[in-house]
């Protein structure tokens, strides 16, 4: 199999051949859709009022039909094993064929250098929401912040907990939601760790239910207000204001967490015959929580890595995204993959990129050059989502521009925070130490979430 056409080569071959033969397929230049199915195989949907090229056309267009056949043959060679079943490549659609609606899906994208009547649709098994637009706001809602990292273990949840504590000290009512469903962490940090007494059904100080419960109850229409009220409790760490915690896993002692988890990411069919995506459902849960709790701000811990959860939290919730990074190639290559994927839908990206901030995690405090190197690496990768050929008004920043999304907000590395358990270790909430380690982050995050209005 030395000559095997691999996944990425198949795509570039397919696109190149299609671009060259577009006018042959659709002389009226109406709609051409290149579909890659979940197995990676290609099909071409043509919806064009000109019928010249169609095989069922009885008129004198033999030349066009011969050319189409040549094209199809070349195409099938070009994509190798990614050919469609039975080599059934081109589907000619009538105007009223519902498949034509695929062209209008928000994740269908026009490749660079192509006319707008050509689109590509990648039928993904997971992660399709990376390219979907932000969900519409139903109500006026509080600012949301999402904490994301390509890699775990860099202090993401710790930073979130410290920010919650800091904002509560300023009198804010903070709603904290743990969406790191595969390795829940915020509950144990922020909620008490007392042992249940005999006869208890739930861990003392914890809410009975958590995020996963909402998803299973929602599938059968039971995600109502009484469930919401059993999903959050007050954290004892709150001072002055309030910290209300929604853990991933509730405190119910007798529960089947993994059975619920495996059902959490479902897209649900609705009564109207449409599909309610996981992201729509998550947004619905958030709206419900916000309307019951009325917080001043919502902090969301997203799980690490390019997972479905993050595809929703980063792109669809209209939140400000704090992207945690350590200066390793692994981190930046991961972000680069994500940004290249986002390039497919520039119209969403133009809004999304305004709400990104890099957080430099575990920065060595004594090393001034570390931050500079970090900002250079970040600038390099963020160039993927900055404007090309940028003029003065365009969205593109120099490496050292402190107002740029890539310019790192620093959190210092400190041994005291290796294991964050502020309820046992009072020193971890020492004001001076917090200021030294998290000062830059707290100041910037507060300014971003609560922008000061100019009084002048």
């Amino acid at each position, binding site marked *: 199999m030395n000559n095997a056409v691999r996944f990425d080569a198949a795509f570039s071959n397919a696109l190149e051949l299609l671009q060259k033969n577009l006018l042959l397929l659709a002389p009226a230049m109406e709609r051409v859709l290149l579909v890659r199915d979940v197995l990676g195989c290609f099909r071409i949907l043509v919806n064009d009022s000109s019928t010249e090229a169609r095989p069922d056309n009885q008129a004198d267009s033999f030349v066009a039909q011969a050319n189409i056949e040549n094209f199809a043959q070349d195409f099938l060679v070009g994509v190798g094993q990614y050919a469609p079943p039975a080599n059934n490549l081109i589907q000619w659609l009538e105007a009223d064929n519902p498949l034509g609606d695929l062209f209008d899906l928000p994740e269908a994208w026009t490749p*660079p250098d192509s006319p707008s009547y050509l689109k590509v649709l990648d039928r993904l098994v997971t992660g399709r929401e990376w390219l979907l637009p932000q969900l519409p706001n139903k109500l006026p809602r509080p600012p949301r912040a999402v904490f994301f990292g390509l890699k775990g273990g860099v202090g993401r949840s710790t930073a979130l907990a410290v920010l919650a504590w800091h904002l509560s000290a300023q009198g804010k009512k903070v709603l904290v939601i743990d969406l790191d469903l595969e390795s829940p962490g915020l509950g144990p940090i922020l909620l008490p760790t007392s042992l249940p007494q005999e006869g208890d059904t739930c861990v003392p100080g914890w809410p009975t239910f958590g995020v996963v419960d909402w998803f299973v109850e929602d599938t059968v229409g039971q995600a109502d207000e009484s469930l919401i009220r059993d999903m959050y409790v007050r954290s004892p760490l709150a001072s002055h204001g309030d910290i209300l915690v929604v853990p991933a896993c509730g405190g119910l002692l007798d529960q089947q967490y993994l059975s619920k988890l495996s059902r959490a990411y479902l897209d649900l069919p609705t009564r109207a015959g449409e599909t309610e995506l996981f992201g729509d459902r998550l947004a619905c849960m958030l709206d419900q929580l916000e309307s019951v709790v009325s917080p001043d701000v919502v902090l969301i811990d997203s799980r690490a890595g390019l997972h479905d959860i993050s595809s929703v939290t980063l792109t669809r919730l209209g939140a400000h995204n704090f992207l945690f990074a350590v200066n390793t190639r692994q981190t930046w290559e991961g972000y680069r993959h994500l*940004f*290249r994927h986002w*390039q497919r839908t*520039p119209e969403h*990206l*133009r809004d999304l990129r*305004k*709400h990104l*901030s890099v957080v430099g995690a575990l920065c060595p405090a004594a090393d001034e050059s570390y931050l500079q*190197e970090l900002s*250079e690496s970040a600038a*390099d990768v963020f*160039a*993927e*989502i*900055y*404007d*090309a*050929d*940028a*003029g*003065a*008004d*365009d*969205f*593109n920043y*120099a*490496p*050292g*521009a*402190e*107002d*740029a*999304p890539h*310019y790192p907000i620093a959190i210092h590395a400190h041994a005291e925070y290796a294991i964050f358990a502020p309820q046992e270790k009072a020193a971890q909430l020492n004001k001076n130490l917090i200021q030294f380690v998290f000062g830059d982050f707290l100041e*910037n995050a507060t*300014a*971003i979430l609560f*922008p*000061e209005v*100019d009084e*002048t």
Partner: protein
Amino acid sequence: MSSVTELRQCFLGGLPDESQAEHDMPKPAQIYMPPAHRRALSLDAPLVVGGRGAGKTLWLRALKDKSYRELLAKAFEFPDFASIEVKIGFSTESSENVPDSRTLNDLLRNQCDAYNIWSAVILHAFVPGHFALQSTWGARTRWVADNGEAVSNLLRSVDSEAAQSAENKLLLFDGLDTTAPRSWEDTQVLLKGLLMLTHQFRQYRALRLKLFIRPDMLERRSIAFPDSSKLINNALKLEWKDIDLYGLLFQYLGNADQGGQVFRDFTVATIRTQWSGTQNSFPLPKPLREDGEMQQRLFHALAGKSMGGGSQRGDTWKWVPNHLSDASGYVSPRSFISALRNAAKNSGERDPSGKAKTALIWQAIQTGVAKASAIRVRELQEDYPWIDDAIAPLKGLLVPCEIKEILRKWTDHETLSKVLNGRGNHRNTERLPPVDVSQNDPKSLIEAMRSLNVFSYRKDGRVDVPDIIRVEAGMTRRGGVPVRR
């Protein structure tokens, strides 16, 4: 409170426009002296280093002119300057009292020693009439060469006379990069002779030399003499820190012919700071000279706190100098003042009815800062005309980029030979080629650009160009999203 339109008028009337900034001496009330410059002007600082636009020529002219000297003595507390005799030992303006570059070339070709040439210049300045019998610089230099002891005695006696009558004598040197056009070798030989003399002048009490020098001039050839480090290490830089740039801005605004009163009232209303002055001259109040936080609050009142655009971190007060700086962080005052003048002008165009909250609108600040790039590039061209030939082929380049991309463009345009032989745009100028650049080592030109802070290196070895140069040079920063126009 004053209206934003009045304040914009104050920027337009109070800040010099491009042609004024280039040619006119600022009025006494507009002169602002940062603390580092005050040290550099003192009589005990023989060596003053500053890049293009840092103020070398301004201070030379101010010291030469009696009325400006009196102003310096009074406003900036230099009592020494009240009774002082100032002469010029060399400058770009020709004079019969100093040899010009052609004469210097003849002298070097006739085996005259640089040290003796400058000794003759100094003697001519400090002992007027001494060379009554020697009418040419050749004859004067030869006399000095033959009468070393007499030279020493003469200078010593003039020095003690001047010291007794408490009248210092100061001899100024500027434009030392133009003593031998096109030859670094001769330029360095001449500079070395002058530096040696300057070093020896430490022994005099009332005779002083002061050299204004471009930073790239002090290189290994000119400082190769015993104990040169004592002189070089004590050189003073004409720095412009952020706080100095804002000091200069507020000095201009507070002394605007029209609108000065508006601005002074504005500082009273916003940061409760009074100006005291006489009729036409209002020195900048101390808090606005020394207190960055006060400056920041005042600038926020003029321009708003943040640069908008979604992020809260673009503090206007830091943003402006940050975006005007070269690869070393240096901001030229002319580009700073011009950027803000343009920002005021552009704010007026965007908001003609004066409904905006602040006099300067952040989008207009962006526009003004982008325009300042042209000014900085022109400033550099004045000192380094060859830079034009090095930058022009890079139009359209995407930065950061690999060194080899630049080298390829330079090869295609025969840039090196244009730069070295003056074949390109600067062929009619009498200026030096870049230092240490050779035809068979194209990378040496990259290094020359880096030492002028026009290029910088990324950690991965690629070359980057700061915005202050990039915009005017027509290069673009890399980006992955096509722009809708």
